[in-house]
């Protein structure tokens, strides 16, 4: 699989991406990974190995809440959604990220 035009998600930005993905609707883990993949036009690949630990960490921090739902196939799926604190955190992280990327953009253009 060619990886030269793809990046692994930057350390520390995975949380931001998860929060952003869940901003509009609740999703289960697999869907979160797929969504990030598609929205980034397949430029970003979420390593499966870090997705679930990140989800559990965010849940433990109280930024996400989870709920088990039964799927049509008779399986149990764990669906995550943002909590109120999750929304606040997302707003903060977006602001941080924009500040950071602006700064890096200036440095790169100078």
């Amino acid at each position, binding site marked *: 699989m060619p990886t030269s035009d793809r990046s692994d998600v930057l350390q520390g930005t995975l949380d931001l991406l998860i929060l952003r993905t869940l901003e509009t609707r609740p999703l289960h883990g*697999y869907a979160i990974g*797929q969504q990030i993949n598609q929205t980034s036009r397949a430029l970003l690949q979420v390593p*499966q*190995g870090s997705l*679930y630990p990140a989800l*559990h960490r965010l849940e433990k921090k109280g930024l996400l809440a989870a709920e088990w739902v039964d799927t049509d196939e008779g*399986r149990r*799926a*764990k669906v995550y959604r943002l909590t109120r604190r999750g929304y606040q955190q997302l707003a903060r992280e977006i602001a941080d990220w924009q500040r950071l990327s602006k700064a890096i953009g200036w440095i790169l253009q100078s």
Partner: protein
Amino acid sequence: MKFVPDWFCRDRIERDIDDELAFHVEAHTRDLISEGVPPEEARRRALATFGGMAPIRELTRDASGGRWLEDLLSDLRYAVRSFRHQPGVTVVAILTLTLGIGANTAIFSMVNGLLLRPLPVRDPGRLVLFSGDASEGTSSSTPPPSGRWDVFSSEAYEYLRSRSLPLQSIGAFASGEQTVALGLSGQPAQDLRARAHLVSGNYFDVIGAAPALGRMLSNDDDRPSAVPVAVASDLFWRQRLGADPAAIGRTVTINGTPFGIVGVMPSEFFGERVRRSPDLWVPLVHQPQVQLRASAAARPELYWLSLFGRLGPRQTIAGAQAATTSALRQFLTASAGAQPSDIARERIASVRVQMVSGARGISVSRDQNRELLVLLLSAVGVILLIACSNVGTLFLARAVARQREIAVRRALGASRGRLIRQWLTESALLAGLGAVGGGIVARLAAPPLFATFVAASNPAKATIDGVVLAFATGAALLSSLIFGLVPALRAGAVDPLATLRAAGPSPSSSRRAGTTDPFVIAQIAMSMMLVVGAVLLVRTLINLERAPLGFDRDRILIASLNARIAGGLGADAHATDARPEVLDLWSRVYERIRALPGVEDATLARYSPFNGSNSSRSLEIEGYVAAQGERVSAETIAVGGNYPQTMGMPVIAGRAISPDDRPSTPRVVVVNASFARKYFAGGTAVGRRLQIRAGGPHEIVGVVEDARFHSVRDAPPPTVFLPLLQDTYLSSTCEVQLRTSGNAESLTDTVRRAIAGVDARIEVGRVQSLRSQVLATFAPERTAAGFLVGFAVLALLVAAVGLYGTVSYGIARRTSEIGLRIALGAARRDVVWLVARASVIRLASGLLVGALLARAAGSLVSAQLFGVAPNDPLSLLVAAATLSVVVALATVRPLARAMRIDPMIALRTE
């Protein structure tokens, strides 16, 4: 909302993670199939993107915090494995901790039993005693004129009860129990006795107790017209009433008066005093029948009641004390008449009531042993510290030996905190095992040790209860921190690269291994402190036993006699009027014992030295003007003829009491030198006269040298010796004292037979040598010395084991170095010095620090010492010598091993 910590439902968490991951794989597989990938291949690829399920599952579980218990268990497993590797070290460590924690738990269970445990009543914390020191009360017919009141008259009690004081209730009890003649209905008359306690009708309500059977006393039982009733103790009910549930309603007679039993108290109840429970509780109103005396209620000058109360909610001791004090002053002002004198007003203004918490009741043994127990607790605390430093040494040695293993774990990614936790888990496990062992040691050791303080009949027991268990656990946790933290921090600080790069222990690390030294020095220093303490207390005991008392204690035999029945006094043991029968009896006893073979001299006395009795009376001395507020008094002892000769007390002036001083002859006394000094300022005492009580004057006919009759420590008080056979208050009890020509106690049977020969009805109590009676009074000091010697030996043992281990370990580490030196031609002497030097330095520093510590701790024992100063140089020297010997012994064997080192073998192992 989570109500249960995560690690409680660890299984559920794992199942959830598995389900979640399985769902992911399935969803992925389905997507792949829909893209046209064959099902088998789709599933393989879905799984492959995970790069293996297990690590993800682990990481995920870590993130959700389910690791805690898992880690602890794995740490414990690891700890057990590493302990199994070194069974010797582990056993020594556990034994050391067992001794340290066991000794502490044992002593603490005694402290808990005697000093801390509350009365077994409802809400004991609300009880207050109207007495400044919560010690055993006494009754007194001289009014407490001023200052603090500890005992009260019936009138004062009734007045205080009638006032609305900030107390829920006020109760009263007689300041002492009464031994009474007991009769049981339906049983033949026997000479039964019982201990009756006079209490107010509301006593049980105030103290907060409920009966096991029947009912308690009520205020109605305590009215003059009330039918006499009593409440029985559990023991009395079992022993005298046959544990009969129908015993309620039965009648017993107390000194001939019938009393109905209305209730039985539960077995754990013993009343307000922590000692053997009274047999019967009787309302105060029956005091004349119980005490066989005139009614105390009618005598305002008789102070015989101790008061206590129960605080209501939001009431405090301070508030109750202030209100009661002012109420008592009002009572005194009202009874002082319309025009009290200035002196009387001043006196009333000085009167006060002092209240203390009654939560733990009144306990004489507690007051007597408090200081000693605190001393012992400090001593065992030091032993625990020694044990901890010992185990700390072992742990440090292990830390050095395991440096490579730690480095490997660090290199494999174990965090510093994780390693420190691993080490602390190991020390906590060790301390936990030590605590279990210590608990067993304490359980076995505490009761017999406690028996040296408190009689078996006392309800105070050194049992292992929740408080004691909490203490033991705390001690174990604390010790695991003390001995585990330093090695743990060092383990965390190991630099994996440097350690793994070095082939063997690197030079820097082997030098750092020398840091066990502070632990070893601490052990020597603390042992030194305990040994000094032990030496001081042993020397105190020797000094006490050797102190001159002013009388001979060897070769003197004493026997206590009671002529209650022989003198025709019947059940009324308290009659103290002179009876011709008693006088005659004592005269005949006196003649008979003097004639016994093997008896050099003999005399009679109201009481003998150091038997616990003391009688003091107010006097008027002709020609002596008392200072303002001075109470002229002296100890008064009635004695028979030849008293000074028998006791070996020199007569300084005049003559001794003679057997011919009789009721018909002029009344005489002999005084001691202190008396002459105090009241005649060194002038002639013989020929002066003094008056005791209301009787006629006595002429002083002689002066004898001072003797210590009660305490080795206190100066002898002014003393007056009265002729026993002339005393108008002749008592039905008396002691014979014989000076024997040989071994005093060999005459025991002879004396018993001789007394029986005079009158078989004379009850002969204890017969023993005066020497053993005196020695018995040093029991507390002997207990203290015995305990401290035991602790010092324990400390030395533990320290010796620790030192032995350290020295052996040091030699083991330097085997190759020593081998090299020998190979290069070093003399054996040099090798010895090489090894011994470290011990000598440790010993010297330990002794120095120990001497300083002992000096600092000196104040703790100074109250217990006699004839020796806390910083006594000789004691320090003895202790230093003892420790030197122990250190030498601990060094000798490893040293011998060092000398046998074969350079060839030593170098080859490198």
